[in-house]
């Protein structure tokens, strides 16, 4: 049995990277665009994807227009090595090749990163809907138009995105691929919901958010938006109920400081000031330690180009030792689609370098090795920066929301003072729940919360607190 496994491993390893004899022969020819094209195609066929990239880029930079065969090669190269392989190319070169759907997507991504929405939208319109990058292109276009406040056009793009990604999802032979397009489809639903929310159509937004299944990767992230939506509908009990979902053990690695602010605000709107104050105090206690733990790491290693990436690869026990929160943060970052795709590409590049080192000595081998080392260096810095930025963003968020919490606290104190001036008090010192205070539609679930979380109930909780906003003369309160 062991022998069989060894043979299989050897055979698979051998097949993973073929020889570069043919590529070496081509490399001996005098340097020309035609040679670069042939080399990139040959290396691609031998599965040296990252090495093929260098020659492909040379060819793209020199040629006026790409032929369909080469277009198919670069589309696959983009899938294998990630969008950043092309999106960081010289913008002038990319702009020249907008007829190529692959390079149009790369340029569209770059422009949207630079918030040049018009240019991004224009470039992405070159990607046909039925192209394999169609769903991404439509989603990006929707976002660009959304930012440009062209809601009708954005809605149309998102609808197309849902349609094409659903088709690819249904036809996908591999589960992972299907899941990827399911996420894009759900993201487009969420973006539609966000447009409705921005326009104050909270009922429509509610329906769109509800179309995201609880098993979805996106589900934990949209709970906050669902809670805000309930808050805007003045259904504070529902808002509090949705937010309580974050306390379930399945979501222990998720941190949303904003959810605490919304919780405090919801209590505040129900005039349950003491509950609001408790939420605020808990926020300071809970997030101060997290902020301190993160800050100490950030300050020590902020100039390092590798530390944070090493942290991602480190065993759980090691990150746990730094702070349990750091471990959870690493889990969260690993879950990001972009990051996980880039990380897979990074590992592939490392693997490719190992195989190149084993190749017989040749000029091409040295060139490929040198190129790939540079690529790996750049990708290490890029991924390291991504993790560092996520951490910095989080610390900044904690500080920002501390300020908002302080504001709520001040407002509560001011309201209390006003009551004293008026010689009044709130009707009840602490109003508690009742089923009578629930707002529920026929298709909305209702579960009693008895200190346990059930997966099928998540996100459907609602509190039943009575508003305490009625003022009475001092001494009349219950």
């Amino acid at each position, binding site marked *: 049995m062991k022998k069989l496994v060894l043979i299989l491993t050897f055979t698979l390893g051998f097949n993973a990277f073929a020889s570069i004899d043919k590529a070496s022969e081509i490399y001996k020819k005098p340097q020309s665009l035609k040679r670069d094209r042939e080399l990139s195609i040959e290396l691609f066929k031998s599965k040296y994807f990252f090495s093929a990239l260098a020659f492909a880029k040379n060819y793209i930079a020199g040629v006026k227009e790409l032929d369909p065969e080469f277009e198919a090669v670069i589309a696959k190269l983009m899938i294998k090595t990630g969008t950043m392989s092309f999106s960081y190319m010289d913008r002038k070169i990319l702009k020249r090749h907008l007829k190529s759907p692959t390079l149009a997507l790369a340029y569209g991504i770059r422009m949207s990163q630079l918030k040049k929405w018009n240019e991004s939208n224009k470039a992405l319109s070159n990607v046909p809907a039925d192209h394999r990058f169609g769903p991404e292109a439509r989603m990006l276009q929707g976002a660009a138009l959304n930012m440009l406040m062209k809601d009708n056009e954005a809605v149309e793009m998102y609808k197309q995105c849902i349609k094409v990604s659903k088709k690819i999802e249904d036809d996908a032979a591999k589960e992972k691929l299907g899941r990827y397009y399911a996420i894009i489809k759900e993201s487009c639903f969420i973006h539609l919901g966000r447009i409705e929310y921005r326009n104050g159509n909270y009922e429509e937004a509610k329906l769109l958010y509800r179309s995201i299944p609880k098993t979805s990767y996106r589900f934990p992230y949209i709970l906050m938006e669902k809670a805000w939506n309930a808050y805007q509908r003045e259904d504070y009990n529902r808002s509090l109920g949705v937010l309580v979902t974050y306390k379930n053990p399945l979501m222990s690695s998720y941190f949303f400081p904003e959810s605490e602010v919304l919780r405090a605000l919801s209590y505040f709107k129900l005039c349950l000031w003491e509950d609001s104050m408790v939420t605020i105090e808990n926020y300071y206690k809970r997030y101060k330690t997290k902020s301190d733990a993160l800050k100490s790491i950030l300050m020590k290693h902020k100039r390092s180009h590798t530390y944070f990436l090493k942290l991602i690869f480190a065993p759980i026990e090691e990150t746990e030792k730094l702070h349990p929160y750091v471990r959870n943060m690493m889990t969260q970052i690993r879950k990001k689609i972009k990051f996980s795709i880039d990380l897979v590409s990074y590992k592939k590049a490392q693997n490719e370098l190992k195989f190149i080192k084993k190749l017989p000595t040749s000029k091409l081998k040295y060139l490929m090795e040198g190129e790939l080392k540079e690529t790996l260096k750049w990708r290490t810095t890029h991924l390291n920066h991504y993790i560092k930025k996520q951490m910095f963003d989080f610390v900044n968020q904690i500080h920002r929301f501390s300020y908002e919490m302080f*504001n709520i606290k001040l*407002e509560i104190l001011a309201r209390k003072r006003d009551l004293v001036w008026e010689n009044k008090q709130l009707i009840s010192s602490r109003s508690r729940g009742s089923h009578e205070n629930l707002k529920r539609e026929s298709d909305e679930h209702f579960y009693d919360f008895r200190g346990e979380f059930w997966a099928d109930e998540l996100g459907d909780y609602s509190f039943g607190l009575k508003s305490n906003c009625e003022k009475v003369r001092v001494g009349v309160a219950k």
Partner: protein
Amino acid sequence: MKKLLTLTILLVLSNPLVAQDKKSSKATGKQKVIYKYRKYEKFDLGNLEIKGSIVAPGDLSVKERSRRTFSRDLYDRDNFNKEVIEDIRNLR
């Protein structure tokens, strides 16, 4: 016509006379005008009388009015644009 002629002659003759008068006063030297003010003035308020009718109530009273309250701009969410941008940055 005669009257008009007489009036014109009189006016023409009167101007040199006035000029001559100013010149003569300059020639005699400047007269010092001294203005004197009172150092202080005393008002006997008790003695002052104000004419009119009294409209205010006789006893001391405060009119009740509601206190002006200022509310802070609490945190609110108008849109999720930040999340949209985050989504597309994390796309592929």
